[in-house]
């Protein structure tokens, strides 16, 4: 069952240096209770996509396209109705738990706000529920932590607070924007465990925004790869890792330190950087960095269509399906 459908989502920003096209007709679905990873380099538009779902973008952004959640067209809802959805049906966890939590309000107060807003819980009831939630995300001594301020907690604890706040109303969809990026490697695994547990316990879908393929391999069911605002490849996680069709996806995988893949132990980088576009070009946006690019790529826009590996890919010259790999 499809929970979230994003169709031709386009986001433009007005900036001092002219217009910037951040998301270029991105389309993807999230099924109920699935973990979908949205993957790409920084600047590819994945975070903007996440914020655009419930119109959380700054004022200089214009959004086109439709976002449908559980049969409701979010993109057509007025702000007041959208507010009912935010935090209750669609909840967010952001990258920087330090700056994303309000420094001058206690943890309990910040969790309590969500409960008051959506579940009309007040006073002692809200407090009890907030303690439960902190306990749920694995924070020791929750009754004491509830009166503390964000700066008194460690980075990992803060991110757990963010998660507790997000799942307070048992949302159907949790949008986690780089939830582990700002944290130490040792703490990342713990946060992913919490997300995994909550997903089964609450039965929510997770839209995971990340550039970290390690995290993807760890937790994602399906993957959408984004490049320069476009979705360029969609596949189940195992299929994507085994049979990448887009040269860019292949490049991402090659940049992961993986002794099995690189006998020489070295990493291969994709040369160049993500372009900043003012408008959607009639070309493949990856052409300038792609070894396989030819005149077709530079003159015609590729569509997202089933590739040689069977899943959709946006490429004129997708990679052939590799022979079954022999472990080194």
């Amino acid at each position: 069952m499809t929970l979230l459908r994003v169709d031709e989502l386009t986001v433009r920003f007005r900036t001092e240096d002219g217009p910037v096209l951040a998301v270029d007709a991105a389309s993807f679905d999230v099924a109920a209770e699935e973990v979908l990873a949205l993957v790409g380099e920084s600047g590819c538009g994945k975070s903007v996509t996440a914020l655009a779902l419930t119109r959380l973008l700054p004022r200089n952004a214009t959004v086109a396209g439709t976002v449908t959640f559980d049969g409701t067209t979010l993109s057509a809802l007025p702000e007041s109705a959208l507010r009912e959805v935010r935090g209750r049906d669609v909840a967010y966890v952001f990258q920087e738990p330090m700056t994303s939590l309000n420094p001058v309000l206690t943890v309990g107060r910040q969790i309590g706000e969500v409960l008051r807003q959506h579940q009309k819980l007040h006073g002692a009831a809200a407090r009890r529920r907030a303690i439960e939630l902190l306990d749920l995300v694995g924070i020791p001594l929750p009754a004491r932590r509830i009166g503390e301020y964000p700066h008194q907690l460690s980075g990992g604890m803060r991110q757990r607070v963010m998660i507790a706040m997000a799942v307070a109303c048992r949302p159907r969809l949790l949008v986690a924007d780089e939830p582990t990026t700002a944290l130490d490697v040792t703490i990342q695994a713990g946060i992913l465990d919490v997300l995994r547990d909550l997903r089964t316990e609450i039965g929510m879908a997770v839209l995971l925004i990340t550039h970290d393929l390690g995290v993807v391999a760890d937790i994602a069911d399906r993957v959408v790869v984004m490049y320069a605002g476009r979705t360029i490849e969609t596949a189940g996680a195992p299929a994507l890792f085994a049979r990448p069709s887009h040269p860019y996806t292949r490049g991402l995988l090659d940049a992961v330190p993986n002794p099995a893949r690189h006998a020489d132990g070295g990493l291969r980088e994709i040369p160049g950087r993500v372009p900043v576009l003012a408008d959607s070009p009639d070309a493949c946006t990856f052409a300038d960095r792609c070894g396989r690019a030819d005149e077709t790529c530079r003159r015609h826009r590729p569509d997202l269509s089933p590739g040689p590996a069977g899943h959709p890919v946006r490429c004129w010259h997708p990679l052939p399906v590799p022979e079954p790999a022999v472990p080194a």
Partner: protein
Amino acid sequence: MTVLDLSTVEAPAAGTLPATRRRVLRRLLRNPLAVLGAVVVLIAVGAALLANVVAPYPYAQTDFSAALQPPSPEHWFGTDYLGRDMFSWVLYGLRVSVLVAVMSVGLSMALGVPLGLLAGYYGFLDPPVSRLTDTLLAFPFLILAVGLAAILGPSLATATIAIGIGQIPQVVRVTRGETLRLRGMDYVTAAIAGGASDTVVLRRHILPNAMNTLIVQATVAAPAAIIGEAVLSFLGLGVRPPTPSLGIMLASAQPFFRDGPWMAVFPGVAIVALTLALNLFGDGLRDAFDPQESRR
């Protein structure tokens, strides 16, 4: 786990100073309010400095037969209780305003900038300089002026010194902040590592780069100084008659509120026009120097 940020770190293009200055000027010229401010400031300062040429009447010329006349084609701003032409008076008053503003801002910069540089550059000098500025800050501007007027007697020089000293803490704070910021810059570290002496670092690397901020500070200080002079002279703590000052004109207007309200209106309008123009120009200049910061 890997980070896929593949962008390379590029050194920012080292813009040459004249090019930067041209860009600042271009940004400034694009801002109509700043241009308007600059034009008004130039006209007011020009008219003030050339008061003896521009003014239609000598400022001290009294004419009792023409006392307390409302504004007319002969006397644009009317006449005061001695029959003096208010327009000419205002021009001469502006001259004093400009003089005090330039001298007091100069005084605060001359003392404040070195203190700020030292406090920002040498950590051990920071606490004593901070105590010094705190001590100065403990005297509200008018209390300082009161004390100085008691010691030195009220005069143009007293007003200038009081305003100048009153602005020192702000100048020290701004300079110190800039010095601290610039000291952390790579090129300053590189200069120090390259064996440049402290004097060279301060004079060649830190001071020139702190200049933009100091210029903006001056555009904030100048209107404050103009108002300060007017207030002090209004209270009798600054410029004394017969030297023409807008503040004195306003003070002498008080008994004539009923019979000659224009006496109280025009000197004030002149102050507002000049300070508003300076503020507009200063705001524009700040935006032109640092578009990122001001656009937040």
